[in-house]
């Protein structure tokens, strides 16, 4: 049957199993909206800003593992998506972004609402397409989804000119896709896997260091199985949280700038580091020259460019993390006796680690007069469901969440790790809630970042998305203030928010519910009440204003030079 391009776009989304998109209308997508009007198989959610729509698609993707989809008009609509695209790109999130474009004959003429969005987003997309002929549309969509979700996932942008949306052709969705220049390597090399197991079983002070790749590659189960078989200590990055249960005795928690003392000490003293889906980011390694000076490094990653980018690697394994770990489990099962020996051999190392854990556990001093943010996070863990999805914004509250929430399941933490995008928390929670209407979705935000996409309260109320918004209000851009306190003699240049916001009234203005308190004794009561509410809720906790995130490895210092209490 002949259809116009706009309709074909929707049919393609349906074929890809897309059930929800986040989009904002405008002149160059009005034809798509006209088709959407009667197209019932796809739920369209209207955010109040395209940036939020992009973060929502990202949150949807992180929570489900499927490709998130968003739609924006040309020009300003398209430029508003850029921060969301860059956020997804830095964390390797599979997304397809569809932007309207001026009609093909006008491209390059500085037409009304024309921007070169492909050019603007080139460095922060995995790939992009300009649809020049409606006959190519179905194949382009097939490729876009394939590229977004395979290999190292990432955002793919499809720029879709208005005249192509109107043009008609026969709709046939391709069954298969073959791109000769794109063949992600999926299977880990069997010899390399054998060598890796041999290296592990010979180690005396091994650490497994896990990044977001284990979550994205749906390898949490395999990771947990293997590490439990070996009783090997495991530390994760911010992005890796949830891939290995933090309540396991062999979990060291998060490493890096605000990581646990035991995790950073383990990395520094290890004789073998097994990096899995991680990329040795500067927030994790600290000063490179002194990073893991005694360790051999095994690096497993689906993206060859991650390997040897920042650190030397003794044994690289390029491949899908799930596949490699499955092979490693088999190999471990073949070597039962050696595994038993290994467990005995690493016992002294485990004692060292337990010593570090005892010496400086992640902790804080609670108070009966002022709310400590860490206390709120612990209460949230205690009172929320086991499968609750937590999103965060960026700042101190993000690090406290990472340190104190205790993540035991994959895809339950949505946070902007690579780009560190303030404004991410609320809209990403919205996307996750759209995907899982029945699950508890909580976003933990600062008073600064929550205001960067606060308009999405309207979207939550309108679409009955009962996201629970926790604001840890220190009336500061707290993370920057902390740096100013420690490294700039407390010159709080432009980090005090001065104007107090009445967040209860704000919730009320949008038709949501709001609670606020500055008393530690009210925290539990408010959380319980909020969780009972059917709709979206703001919980504002006025916290100890100058509380710091500790421990901290100052930028440029070695991992074992942590500031423990300042």
């Amino acid at each position, binding site marked *: 049957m002949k259809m116009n391009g706009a309709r074909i776009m929707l049919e393609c989304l349906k074929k890809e199993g897309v059930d929800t998109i986040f989009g904002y209308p405008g002149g160059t997508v009005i034809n798509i909206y006209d088709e959407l009007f009667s197209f019932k198989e796809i739920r369209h959610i209207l955010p109040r800003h395209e940036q939020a729509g992009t973060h929502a698609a990202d949150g949807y993707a992180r929570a489900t593992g499927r490709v998130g989809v968003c739609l924006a008009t040309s020009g300003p609509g398209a430029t508003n998506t850029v921060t969301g695209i860059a956020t997804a790109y830095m964390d390797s999130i599979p997304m397809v972004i569809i932007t309207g474009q001026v009609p093909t004959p006008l491209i390059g003429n500085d037409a009304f609402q024309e921007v070169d969005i492909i050019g603007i987003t080139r460095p922060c997309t*995995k790939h992009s397409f300009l649809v020049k002929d409606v006959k190519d549309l179905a194949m382009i969509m097939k490729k876009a989804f394939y590229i977004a979700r395979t290999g190292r996932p990432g955002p793919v942008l499809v720029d879709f000119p208005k005249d192509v949306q109107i043009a008609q052709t026969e709709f046939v969705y391709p069954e298969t896709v073959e791109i000769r220049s794109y063949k992600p390597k999926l299977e880990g090399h069997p010899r390399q896997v054998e060598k890796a197991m041999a290296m592990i079983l010979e180690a005396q002070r091994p650490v497994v260091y896990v990044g977001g790749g284990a979550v994205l590659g749906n390898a949490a189960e395999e990771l947990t199985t293997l590490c439990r078989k070996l009783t090997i200590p495991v530390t994760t990055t911010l992005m890796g949280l949830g891939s290995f249960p933090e309540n396991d005795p062999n979990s060291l928690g998060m490493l890096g700038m605000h990581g646990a003392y035991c995790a950073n000490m383990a990395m520094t003293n290890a004789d073998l580091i097994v990096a899995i889906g991680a990329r040795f980011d500067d927030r994790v390694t600290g000063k490179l020259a002194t990073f893991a000076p005694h360790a051999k490094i095994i690096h497993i990653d689906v993206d060859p460019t991650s390997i040897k980018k920042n650190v030397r690697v003794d044994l690289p394994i390029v491949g899908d993390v799930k596949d490699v770990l499955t092979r490693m489990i088999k190999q471990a099962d073949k070597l039962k006796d050696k595994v038993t020996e290994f467990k005995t051999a690493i016992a002294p190392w485990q004692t060292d680690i337990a010593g570090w854990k005892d010496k400086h556990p992640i902790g804080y001093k609670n108070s009966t007069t002022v709310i400590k943010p860490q206390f709120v996070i612990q209460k949230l863990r205690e009172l929320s469901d086991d499968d609750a999805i937590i999103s965060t914004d960026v700042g101190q509250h993000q690090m406290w969440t990472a340190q104190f929430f205790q993540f035991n399941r994959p895809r339950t933490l949505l946070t902007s790790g690579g780009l560190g995008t303030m404004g991410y928390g609320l809209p990403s929670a919205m996307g996750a809630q759209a995907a899982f209407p029945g699950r508890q979705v909580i976003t933990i935000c600062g008073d600064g970042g929550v205001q960067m996409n606060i308009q999405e309260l309207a979207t939550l109320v309108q679409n009955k998305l009962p996201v629970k918004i926790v604001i840890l209000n220190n009336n500061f851009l707290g993370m920057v203030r902390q740096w100013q306190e420690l490294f700039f003699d407390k010159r709080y240049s432009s980090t005090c928010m001065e104007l107090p916001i009445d967040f209860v009234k704000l919730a009320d203005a949008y038709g949501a519910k709001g609670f606020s308190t500055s008393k530690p004794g009210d925290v539990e009561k408010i959380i319980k009440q909020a969780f009972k509410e059917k709709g979206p809720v703001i919980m504002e906790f006025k916290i100890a204003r100058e509380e710091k995130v500790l421990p901290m490895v100052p930028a440029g210092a070695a991992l074992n030079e942590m500031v423990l209490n300042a």
Partner: protein
Amino acid sequence: MQHTISVLVENEFGVLSRVASLFSGRGFNIDSLTVAPTNEEKMSRMTIVTRGDDQILEQITKQLNKLIDIIKVIDFTDGSGVERELALIKVTAEDESRAEVLRIVDIFRAKIIDVTPKSYTIEATGNPVKIDAILDLLRPLGLKELVRTGAVAIGRGAKGWKG
């Protein structure tokens, strides 16, 4: 160290800017870059001359391979390829220097492709080191203008590459 890399690419919209923006975005050097169609209709070939230590070169090759439209990347630095470059050189040639220019042109098996009473325009081909050498000799006589194509390279031996 200088490296000559050949890159086979799909003839897709924007592929040149993807490659160029990869180099600028990651701070890699480009000494020269050429691109033109090949014997296969849907394929173009770029030759990029770049610099860096082994680790940087490994990143350059891997990052190029990661671009979706790139079919194949080959580093010719180990002498496995033959390189050529073409230069058009406009040089001052008056009175006594006219003969000197002709002699240099002759030695380098270059050609004069345009003449005026005050200048010669020379076409020289050869590997980039040879082009540098002729330029060194011509420079003292007065270089008015210079255009170089940048190197192109092809593998030695009977085997050809396809996509």
